[in-house]
């Protein structure tokens, strides 16, 4: 690329030098980030990959390893005869869905109401503050609260006992009630955040589009489904992806609620809780590294699926295809 400049294009070369003068500062300003990234993120990341192929742990006070062991660690975490990553991914995604489905519905509804000019809601500031409030509580504190509320001798069970012959319903000893409580907490903690995001998206829609639809006789249902939703699609996808990644890394809520056990029968054990169990006492860098890598791959894959599946609608996809084809044709023509 630099060669043509030498052929006598003086002015552009000078201009390039000018940019170069400032470009230096760009790199200088980037140094702190790059250094921190390399030391605290890239290097551990590489080590995680590296140690996932090693036997490397502590038993009592004795370190074992690192001894190269091939893919033994990966074989161990996919061993179907015991707790395996398929079951854990299932647990994690189910608990995420239990929280996310009501969350997105309620958030869409609230965001639509809050931004609807015709409703003219009063005291919106108060509403927005209240629905965001649960997110400000520490997840572990919230989890402790729910634990005490729903324990066998907690207030909820005191109510249940009065019309169940004095027998409590043991929420935390049943799979679906425990999963439900985890979902409930995630829903309560995050629907405010999602509402605010979707509101921002909806406020970005040009009012005239909606007015035009109204003049054309569209009902509010039609406006919502045919105009609002398609126009906020990028933000919806963003919400979905971030929530999914957050969901896959679900840890604190079920950890505190079940005391790290993922009880009953490991049905509320999430991927990261499993990782924590392996790194906690035995510092098993091999197994933990293998789990991290699988979680990383799952996250990346799901994000790609969601992105390519939902981010672009049919027309955009076709347009992109046409553009790509045109580009190809152009290159081929130039090549000739």
């Amino acid at each position: 690329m630099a060669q043509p400049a030498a052929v006598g294009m003086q002015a552009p070369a000078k201009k390039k030098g000018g940019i170069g003068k400032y470009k230096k500062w760009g790199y200088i300003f980037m140094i702190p980030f790059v250094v921190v990234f390399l030391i605290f993120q890239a290097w551990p990341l590489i080590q995680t990959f590296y140690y996932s192929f090693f036997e490397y742990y502590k038993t009592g006070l004795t370190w074992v390893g690192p001894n190269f062991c091939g893919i033994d660690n990966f074989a161990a975490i996919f061993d179907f005869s015991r707790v395996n990553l398929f079951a854990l991914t299932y647990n994690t995604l189910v608990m995420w869905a239990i929280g996310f489905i009501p969350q997105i519905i309620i958030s869409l509804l609230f965001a639509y109401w809050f931004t609807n000019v015709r409703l003219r809601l009063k005291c919106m500031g108060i509403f927005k503050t209240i629905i965001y409030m649960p997110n400000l509580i520490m997840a572990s504190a919230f989890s402790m609260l729910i634990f005490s509320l729903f324990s066998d001798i907690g207030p909820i069970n005191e109510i249940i006992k009065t019309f169940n012959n004095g027998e409590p319903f043991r929420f935390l000893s049943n799979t679906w009630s425990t999963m439900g409580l985890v979902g409930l907490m995630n829903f309560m903690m995050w629907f405010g955040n999602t509402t605010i995001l979707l509101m921002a998206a909806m406020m970005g829609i040009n009012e005239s589009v909606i007015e035009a639809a109204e003049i054309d006789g569209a009902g509010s249902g039609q406006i919502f489904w045919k105009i609002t939703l398609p126009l906020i699609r990028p933000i919806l996808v963003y919400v979905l992806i971030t929530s999914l990644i957050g969901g896959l890394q679900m840890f604190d809520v079920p950890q505190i609620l079940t005391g790290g056990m993922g009880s009953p029968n490991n049905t509320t054990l999430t991927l990261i809780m499993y990782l924590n169990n392996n790194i906690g006492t035995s510092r098993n860098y091999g197994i933990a590294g293998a789990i991290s890598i699988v979680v990383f791959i799952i996250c990346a894959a799901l994000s790609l699926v969601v992105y390519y599946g939902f981010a672009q609608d049919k027309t955009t996809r076709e347009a992109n295809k046409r553009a790509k084809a045109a580009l190809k044709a152009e290159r081929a023509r130039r090549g000739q």
Partner: protein
Amino acid sequence: MKKRILAALLASATLISMAGCSSTQSTSSTTSSAGDGQSSATEAPANSGDATEAPAESGDATEAPTESEAPGEDKAAVDCVDDITLADGEGKVLNIAVWNDDWKKQFEQYIAPHMPKDVTVNFRITENKENAYQNKLDNDLPENESKSADEKIDMFLFEADYATKYVASDVTLDVKELGLTDDDVKDMYQYTKDVCTVDGVLKGVSWQATPGLFAYRREAAKEILGTDDPDAVQAELSDWTKFEAVAAKAKEKGYKMLSGYDDSYRVFSNNVSKPWVDENKNVQIDDQLMAWVDQTKKYTDEGYNNKTSLWDDAWTKDQTPGQKVFGFFYSTWGINFTLAGNSLKTPEKEGGKLEVGNGEYGQWAACYGPASYFWGGTWMAAAKGTDNPKLVGSIMKAFCCDPDFAKAFAKETQDYANNVPMMKELADDPDYGSTFLGGQNHYALFFNVADKISMDKCTIYDQACNEQFQGAFKDYFDGKVDKDTALANFYTKVKEKHPDLVTP
């Protein structure tokens, strides 16, 4: 000008508040160092606070009380301790790692008044939530020798379940290096020495033995068995078959025999015939453990227990006044501290006193139960690399080896001291009785059980195995999984803690 006046005002306010701080600090440290028996235990924490590295200021302890304050002719425990001197060349900072302030309070009450003046004692407290205390020790102890003298851990405390982990490694010192002789430890219970003995070398000592009993509500015993006399009740509970028959009777009367799943665990797990892990690292499940599983499953299905788990709120609630649970398997500390505290109507926090008339205090009794067992206990060891071996040795001697101290300490705290002849004296004392147990001499009972305790099957894997076994079988008791799945889950969990174990 205004600004200057304001600045001057602010500066003087800061100065005054700092002066105020330091003056309160110095007063509280004098209170704690006055060390007059009982009161210093409660006041001391105000000074040294709950910060992990707060110096205990025990160096100030110059005015050790000389006159006895205990009733009768017996000396108070604090007076049984001789003044400790600092050996030549030893450091002036003593760091002690612990997981709560229980022993710190006892240290401040009994030992601190006799410590050398110029030694600062730091308690490094790491709560043992999710294994944090052990993780900290595991990190610090192997590196202890390379730390600077004042940073080194000189001494640390540990419990039975993970004792072997530390004494079997080279991070602990032989107590003989600390100045303890065979004569010093001859009166200790053999099992307390077995726990800390590796290849014939004793590496830790304890001031307490922890034999266990079955503590029951007298009221419930009268209703279920027609008597609350400990001997008669013992006759009814002397083996597991009889115990179960009483459980059925208790159910008819509206009582639960036990509170939850883990209550009888130690009674079985202490009577195993083989260790958790054999020499080839195979995990082995003893028949006694499966007997616990079968019994607990039956009790759960029949409604003989309240489905609680050890230490959870529901379990603790079952020990409070008015609850319909017959009794608890508890060892020395459990009966004298935990259960006695829980039996009160007005808890000690709210100003209640440990006295008859407050809730069910005094309305409990204890008997041996179906099998002898022990539960818990705390040991102390010197960390390799310490610059205060002799000082640590002196503290061990004073707290664990002195017979007079043992007796006075047991009487003052109701704890069961680790000294066979002295405990025998108390056990044979016809005038002695525990107010909590309605006048029963619990030392007599404890004494007979303590003799039978053996702890020769320890492994470094015990804690993980015990915890995960109880945890995994909870699902089985709840009816969520079958026995084989519970066992498989146990194997998975225990391998997470110790990946080197071999499981089926």
